[in-house]
């Protein structure tokens, strides 16, 4: 439930809410869905990126970084002895 609505809300927040709120929400959603930061970053750059406005798709890169970090943490937790 949290994953489905959270993922949908994260995408919608990229449209309707300021980017700091969306970034924080995507960061929180990474605990449940590691791909959400990358997805939100990619979606935000798809909507707002212009070549003359920024030199690189910052949101996508940041989302990819957070997603990679989330996968790394999850992987360590799942293979550890303290898996919850």
């Amino acid at each position, binding site marked *: 439930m949290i*994953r*489905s609505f959270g*993922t*949908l809300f*994260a*995408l919608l927040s990229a*449209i*309707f809410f*300021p980017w700091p709120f969306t970034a924080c929400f995507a960061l929180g959603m990474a605990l449940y*869905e*590691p*791909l*959400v930061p*990358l*997805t*939100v970053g*990619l*979606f935000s750059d*798809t*909507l707002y990126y212009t070549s003359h406005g920024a030199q690189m798709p910052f949101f996508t890169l940041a989302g990819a970084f957070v997603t990679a970090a989330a*996968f790394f943490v*999850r*992987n360590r937790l*799942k*293979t550890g002895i303290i898996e919850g």
Partner: protein
Amino acid sequence: MKKTFLAKRNALLSSRSASWGALALTTALGVLFLRLLAPNLFWQAFAPVFRVSDALATESHSFSDRFGNAAALASLNEKLVERNASLANENAALVQKVANLSELLGASGVQSGSSGILAGVIARPPESPYDVLVVGAGENEGVALGMEAFGAADVPLGVVSSVLADVSRVTLFSAPGMTTNASVGRANVPLTLTGAGAGAMNASVARTAGVAVGDTVFVPGPGMLPIGSVVRIDSDPLSPGVTLRIKPAFNLFSTAWVELRATGAVSTVFATSTP
């Protein structure tokens, strides 16, 4: 025999992480491809979304601005209160001005009528020579040499000493060397006012006339017109008379409108030649 299924523990490909996140990522990639391959279709599809987003952002900003900065709001409120007080004072001044003009015009509101000619003051000291007013009415408006100029409350100010087509020059009673017949006090003691310059006038009367500080000085007109009041009495023991220092009824140099009338009652002598 029951088989034991051991799922491979892979964080990237687990069924849990491949559900909603992968679906959303696929959707985002689809939108990205749509923008790259068919940009026109993309902008047409998302234009309503952006409009709704802009409207929502505007509303949210206006809503948050109400609570944004309490100090700024308090400062703004203070400025508005001050501005309100300033406007109230200005309004009171305008009401007073309207009342003065109405009184000056006899509530007729006409520029020129049987009662006189209303003229705005174009120049006053120090723009004009001292104790001289330049008013915006001349021969074209019916101004004639020797007409008397009145301020608010029918206070005589001076006499028209020069007339041009559209402007006139009013020499005030306080002009140096200008003499005017007048009377003072309840006994209407006759005296001759002499202009002392800068809006002040002097007069000499007998010591026994009983004139006191605060007595009103009148000049002849339609009735007795107050021109000023005695503010000081200089007495010389060697002289049988006293010198009265007379202050005009109001600041002659701050008046903005005058009314010019041909009264014929004031006998004035110009010490200086009129152009």
